[in-house]
């Protein structure tokens, strides 16, 4: 026998000897990564599923690599995938069609997002969240005169941050601008659309220039350690920061640990409205799922009202189906719920959806906004020149993906244009 054959035989032997699936469904997810949340998913949310679930949370990179490897191999062990809209957008071909799952109780817009621009239902909405502002009680003393917490403007936010910085001797406003922070969502879904009414098309417009000038002004009164921040709840709790913007799930600990010390309120508004970005997480089934019937059962289980409430307790992500929330919900839910309602139903509310149809280019799309921020605000480069050069990059990405515009940009034939 030639050595090569020997090797092949040995490898085949090894593969055949791999332990068989234990009957537990593997739930491979990018969500609920902090160990307490993972634990809560296992013990509170998934315990009731017959047959048992092995819930494993991973970073986006490893999550994607394993999925791609299983699909390339043509067989896999992942039963159900959990991830954000953006996680799924890059792997549409690896996802089985779930059109036959009953989604009657779910908001139709969210269900439509789950088709990823194609015909089949690629993922089923699982839970939702958004971003909010949070302030400690100390901060409220410096709220500019005449400003309404429920209807703040960016100018008032800047004045507020400035008042705190000048009164306390150090900036007390914080942004999650660290490597793991969600700063790009602030630029894409809040700041820019508030000033331009657009996320993509008006990227290098004069209004966008004004938005970045406002950002520079805000940054003067922002704690410079923000470039290390990931989850603003930490800095709120240590008192390093009194006023912050972040994902509801990343503010939750502050409310849960000291419910009386913090308030939640809507994101500020700009000249074009109060832009905000809803976040949608979904569950999907890879084409290589070992037991599709079991996977479908688990997906249906995730949509049951009791599961949705348990998920809210475990992850601070809100249900996607109509459920009556019990009175004993965590403090973070009680604080964020009204703020979310105030933001989404505000007269000037301007929803800016998560990027759609970008596929694997989603990361590069986000990077355009992060690079713009790093160059203009941190690097002090001229706004006009940076916007022009980053617009080139944005154009290339949208053309390569062939992605048409999404809200708040007007629908387009062909790739979304950057004027």
């Amino acid at each position: 026998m030639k050595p090569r054959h020997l090797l092949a035989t040995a490898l085949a032997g090894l593969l055949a000897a791999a332990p068989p699936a234990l009957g537990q469904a593997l739930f491979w997810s990018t969500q609920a990564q902090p160990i307490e949340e993972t634990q809560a998913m296992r013990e509170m949310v998934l315990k009731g599923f017959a047959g048992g679930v092995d819930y494993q949370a991973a970073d986006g990179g490893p999550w994607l690599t394993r999925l791609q490897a299983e699909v390339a191999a043509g067989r896999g062990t992942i039963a159900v995938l959990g991830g954000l809209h953006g996680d799924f957008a890059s792997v549409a071909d690896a996802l089985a069609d779930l059109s036959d799952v009953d989604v009657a109780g779910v908001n139709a817009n969210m269900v439509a997002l789950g088709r990823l621009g194609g015909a089949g239902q690629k993922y089923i909405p699982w839970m939702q969240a958004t971003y909010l502002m949070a302030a400690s009680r100390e901060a409220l003393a410096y709220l500019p005169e005449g400003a309404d917490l429920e209807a703040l403007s960016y100018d008032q936010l800047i004045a507020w941050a400035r008042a705190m910085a000048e009164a306390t001797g150090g900036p007390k406003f914080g942004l999650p601008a660290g490597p793991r922070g969600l700063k790009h969502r602030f630029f894409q879904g809040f700041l820019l659309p508030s000033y331009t009414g657009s996320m993509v098309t008006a990227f290098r417009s004069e209004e966008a220039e004004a938005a970045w000038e406002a950002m520079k002004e805000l940054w003067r009164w922002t704690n410079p350690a923000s470039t290390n921040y990931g989850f603003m709840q930490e800095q709120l709790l240590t008192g390093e920061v009194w006023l912050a913007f972040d994902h509801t799930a990343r503010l939750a600990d502050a409310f849960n640990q000291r419910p009386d010390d913090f308030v939640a309120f809507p994101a500020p508004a700009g000249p074009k409205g109060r832009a905000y970005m809803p976040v949608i997480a979904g569950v999907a089934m890879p084409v290589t799922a070992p037991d599709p019937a079991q996977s479908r059962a688990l997906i249906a289980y995730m949509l049951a009202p009791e599961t949705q409430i348990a998920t809210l307790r475990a992850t601070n992500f809100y249900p996607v189906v109509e459920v009556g929330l019990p009175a004993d919900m965590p403090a973070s839910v009680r604080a964020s719920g009204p703020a979310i309602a105030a933001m989404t139903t505000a007269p000037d509310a301007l929803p800016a959806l998560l990027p759609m149809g970008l596929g694997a280019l989603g990361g590069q799309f986000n990077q355009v906004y992060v690079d713009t921020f790093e160059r203009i605000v941190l690097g002090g480069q001229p706004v006009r020149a940076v916007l022009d050069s980053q617009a080139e990059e944005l154009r290339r990405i949208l053309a390569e993906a062939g992605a048409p515009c999404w809200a708040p940009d007007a629908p387009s034939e062909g790739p979304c244009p950057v004027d």
Partner: protein
Amino acid sequence: MPRLLPYLLLLPATAFLVVFFLYPFLLVAIESVTRQGAWSLANYERMAGHWKFSAAFWNTLLLAGIVVPIQLALALTMASVVTGLKAGRATILYIFAIPLGISDLAAGLVWLAIFEQTGFLNSLLTGFGLVERPVLFLGYQNPWAILLAIVLAEVWRATAIMMVILVAGMGLIPREYGEAAEVFGASRWQRFLRVTLPLLRPSLQTALILRVILAFEVFAVVAALGGTQFPVLMGETYNWQFTLQDRGVAAALAMVILAISIAATLVLLRLLHVPKEART
């Protein structure tokens, strides 16, 4: 059969290297020069055209250029001290080598805990009343402070690997040379320069090549202390692969790291060339 035996014994290790190193390496090399299935240098163009690339490139070289000489000097000193010891040698060696047992991310986190705004250094400074409020050392405005922190962490973490190699090398130098030089009246310093260093060349070569290559691959320490504020080649590779999901450009960056590693190795081989007749 005995003639073939050594080769048979080497076969598993060779097969392992071929399957798990050479083959993936070839795939990466091919990936770096293809785009959508066609041969192209587009990956390299995109890599070089990105506004962070030149910063990452020069930061990596700068870091290696600062860290390796410091480590060389420290490792030579430590190795000389350890070699000269009569008692307690093993204990000192163990203590020196402790940072080797820590992963580089953990090492980065240890130093982050010191330099953070809420870290030990700030507690100390405010405790002694030297500063009024905690200082932000690792902010984006102080790239030099970030560089300094990374250099400290790297020196602390990885000097021992050079020292271990140099201690072994010094142990191989016959005592007679040093004693002969002493008889002719050479001072300690002269003996070190004229006897120990030249005879240490082979070990120096190994230690330097190993350290320089590892310095080009620096990643976790930088990620922990500098985040995205101090771009290095390895960090950018990770970023292109996982955040930007462009494997082609990530592969191109990996090839750049390989190229400078090979270049540095060749330079070191030439500089510290050991003549054939001098090899023992």
